[in-house]
């Protein structure tokens, strides 16, 4: 073999390698453009982040709004619209420096006027806002890019409350925050996020388009925060209430993404060459929330009877499509994945499946078989499933359950009214701080007013030592199982489906986000 031939072979090989490498790189290079179609399970009750804790609202609003802080991959607060903050020596004054040159979708620059007005509104309506602002003495503008929060007492929860994505402290323009009182949902949607709302046609679609003047942060994407780039031209959120249809449409390519799918579809999705199933852990723990303000379930013994009667595992198994890998039996109020607050306490009256105890409690409660209005929806299929199965188990023990099925948006509205129901179904997602467990507050539907529980929550807000907080949290867990504000079932995992043409999707966050996501041709 001549030297020349050898060299040319080597050059060919080198060229091939470079091309291959370039090809591989090209596949990982984000491409601008395209429309992403996402299947939602229904209509959001609102697009006002301050107004509700509903997950659909959370997912949608986190694309068009931002808060002062966000969560990183370890679920810790990191700055988003804030540049930095300082805390006074006594821990009672927080000074926030805002980023400069951040634009709203209407072209206006974000200043501390907007921030103060938005958080004031959030502090009156949002569950997390109310918990934080209970500790706030004063919240005011210092200068164009600085705001100051003076606290009544030391707090453990300032940054985390501002970082939580659910029912979050979204920054609205001051005019909008002042125009709409906290109880009234905003109907003008202007934020600072990488996408802006183009149109909302109820029952048809919600259309978001790229906000061209968005300035991402310099850092790499980190959890929910860091740099956010909108590669997509458009996100189209389409309500598809029938879960079987939602799955089918991802399989055929009519949708690129669908969430909240029934677990029966997992095997089928795995076999499909164009689609990937994603199992999300944690998803929710199933919960039946009692109306403790008015009606039959104000009676603690009745609630305890319900808790004693339940045999949770067969319910979880049915809801998880018969597959044990999709649910987890656990009594901890924080799921396994939130390692800092996961508890392993023994002797809790969870999943007792004790019919005699339940019947005795019913007697002691003086229950005379009055119908208990149990509100649920078929839009979250697993809610309907566990409601129906619960009804049977309870009726076997002597309860009389009146199951009322409505659509999710209606349920979220009705659960605010104490005259409309006795119990409703929902799911509790991951909370990053003990004070965020909304079902332990008096402002979230269900209205937990037990003195011991509320006292412990207030102490948790004040105490800054992590070891002491954990001890308080364990106490709170025991109180939870004794006072039974809600019924904790098991942990359910979620199923999502994503087409292989969708790249850059962060599979590790609990909720879905489509910034930093692009579509392959």
């Amino acid at each position, binding site marked *: 073999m001549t030297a020349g031939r050898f060299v040319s072979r080597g050059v060919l090989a080198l060229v091939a390698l470079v091309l291959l490498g370039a090809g591989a790189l090209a596949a990982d290079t984000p491409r601008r453009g395209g429309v992403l179609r996402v299947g939602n399970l229904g209509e959001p009750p609102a697009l006002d982040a301050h107004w509700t804790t509903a997950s659909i609202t959370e997912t949608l609003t986190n694309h068009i709004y931002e808060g002062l802080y966000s969560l990183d991959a370890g679920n810790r607060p990191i700055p988003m619209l804030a540049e930095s903050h300082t805390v006074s020596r006594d821990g009672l004054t927080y000074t926030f420096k805002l980023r400069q040159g951040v634009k709203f979708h209407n072209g206006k620059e974000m200043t501390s006027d907007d921030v103060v007005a938005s958080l004031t509104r959030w502090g009156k309506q949002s569950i997390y806002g109310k918990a934080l602002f209970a500790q706030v003495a004063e919240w005011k503008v210092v200068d164009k890019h600085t705001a100051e929060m003076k606290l009544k007492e030391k707090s453990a929860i300032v940054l985390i409350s501002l970082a939580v994505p659910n029912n979050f402290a979204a920054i609205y323009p001051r005019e909008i925050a002042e125009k709409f009182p906290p109880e009234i949902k905003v109907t003008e949607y202007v934020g600072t996020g990488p996408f802006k709302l183009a149109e909302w046609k109820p*029952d*048809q679609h919600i259309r978001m388009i790229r906000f061209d003047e968005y300035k991402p942060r310099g850092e790499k994407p980190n959890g929910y925060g860091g740099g956010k780039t909108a590669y997509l031209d458009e996100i189209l959120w389409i309500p598809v209430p029938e879960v079987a249809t939602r799955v*089918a*449409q991802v399989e055929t390519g009519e949708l690129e993404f669908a969430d909240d799918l029934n677990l029966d579809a997992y095997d089928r999705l795995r076999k499909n060459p164009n689609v990937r199933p994603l199992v999300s852990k944690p998803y929710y723990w199933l919960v039946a929330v009692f109306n403790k303000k008015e009606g039959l379930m104000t009676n603690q013994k009745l609630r305890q009877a319900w808790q004693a009667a339940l045999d949770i595992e067969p319910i979880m198994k049915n809801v998880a499509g018969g597959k044990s890998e999709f649910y987890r039996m656990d009594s901890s109020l924080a799921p396994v994945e939130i390692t800092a607050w996961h508890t392993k306490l023994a002797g809790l009256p969870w999943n007792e499946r004790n019919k005699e105890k339940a019947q005795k409690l019913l007697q002691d409660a003086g229950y005379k078989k009055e119908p208990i209005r149990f509100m649920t929806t078929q839009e979250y299929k697993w809610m309907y499933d566990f409601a129906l199965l619960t009804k049977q188990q309870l009726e076997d023990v002597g309860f009389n359950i009146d199951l009322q099925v409505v659509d999710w948006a209606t349920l979220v509205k009705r659960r605010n009214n104490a005259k*409309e129901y006795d119990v409703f179904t929902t799911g509790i997602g991951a909370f990053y701080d003990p004070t965020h467990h909304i079902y332990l507050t008096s402002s979230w539907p269900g209205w937990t007013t037990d003195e011991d529980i509320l006292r412990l929550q207030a102490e948790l807000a004040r105490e800054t030592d992590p070891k002491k907080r954990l001890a308080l949290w364990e106490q709170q867990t025991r109180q939870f199982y004794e006072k039974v504000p809600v019924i904790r079932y098991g942990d359910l995992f979620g199923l999502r489906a994503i087409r292989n043409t969708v790249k850059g999707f962060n599979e590790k966050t609990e909720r879905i986000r489509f910034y930093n996501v692009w579509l392959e041709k």
Partner: protein
Amino acid sequence: MTPYLLRRVLALVPVLAVVVTVVFLLIHLIPGDPVGVMLGPDATPAQVQATRQALGLDRPLHEQLLKFYSRVLRGDLGQSYFLDRPVTTALLERAEPTLVLTLASLLVAIAIGVPSGIVAAAHRGSAWDRLLMLGALLGVCVPGFWLSLNFIYLFAVRLGWLPAAGYTSIFADPVAALRYMVLPAVSLGFSQSALIARISRSCMLEALQQDYVRTARAKGLSQGAVTWIHAFRNALVPVVTVIGITTAILIGGAVVTEIVFNIPGLGRLIISAVLRRDYPVVQGVILVTATAYVLINLAVDILYVFIDPRIRYE
């Protein structure tokens, strides 16, 4: 001809008046307080009272009726409580898919029904006749929505030839629109083709026995020519009538089909309105569909005049 047409149009007025009255009365059939039910649990007593006054529900019934008439005549069908927009807007947004589905199913029903009826009549008494009429019987008895589900299972799930659900506008992407329309239109149209087949058959049979047909045959025209040319044209009149009625049934059938195939039309609209207790939307949908039916029948009657020369001289 003109006096006939004029009479026909004037006859519409009382019918439409009844339609509007029925739509108006719907709210008053609700047990309990309709406003409380409509506004939902969020409403404060002040809001309920304000809405009651705005809707005129605190006035005597005949006054309310007159007010309702004047609103409808002005094209104001009220405001949707859930969708936060005028009912007319919501209706216009959803009309296209329902119209397309109804039209497509009508075409399918005619395409299956008319030839079946004619062939059955031409071969009266034969195995073909019996087979086709059996098919027609099944078409009447098999529930349309169940047929739709079976089609989905067979053609979408098992065979994967067609999409299981969804809708694309013809104006956006004609090929995709067609693919989405096949299963819905065929399952809906098949059920209706049965009636059309039966009527076509009986009309053809009658027509085939008319004098002029026998004369034509005597003159030596072949069997085929007679069948298709003369008889068909005269059988057209009753068939056109049936198509008028069929369209009404199809509009109703489209509701169910839209639910099965997740098509965003008036059917999906009325069902979600019912579940959300959004009564103005429910009223709007039935008002519009009833009016459409009345107008379609008028169109059919006018069409008659041109097809059947006998009517002209009335």
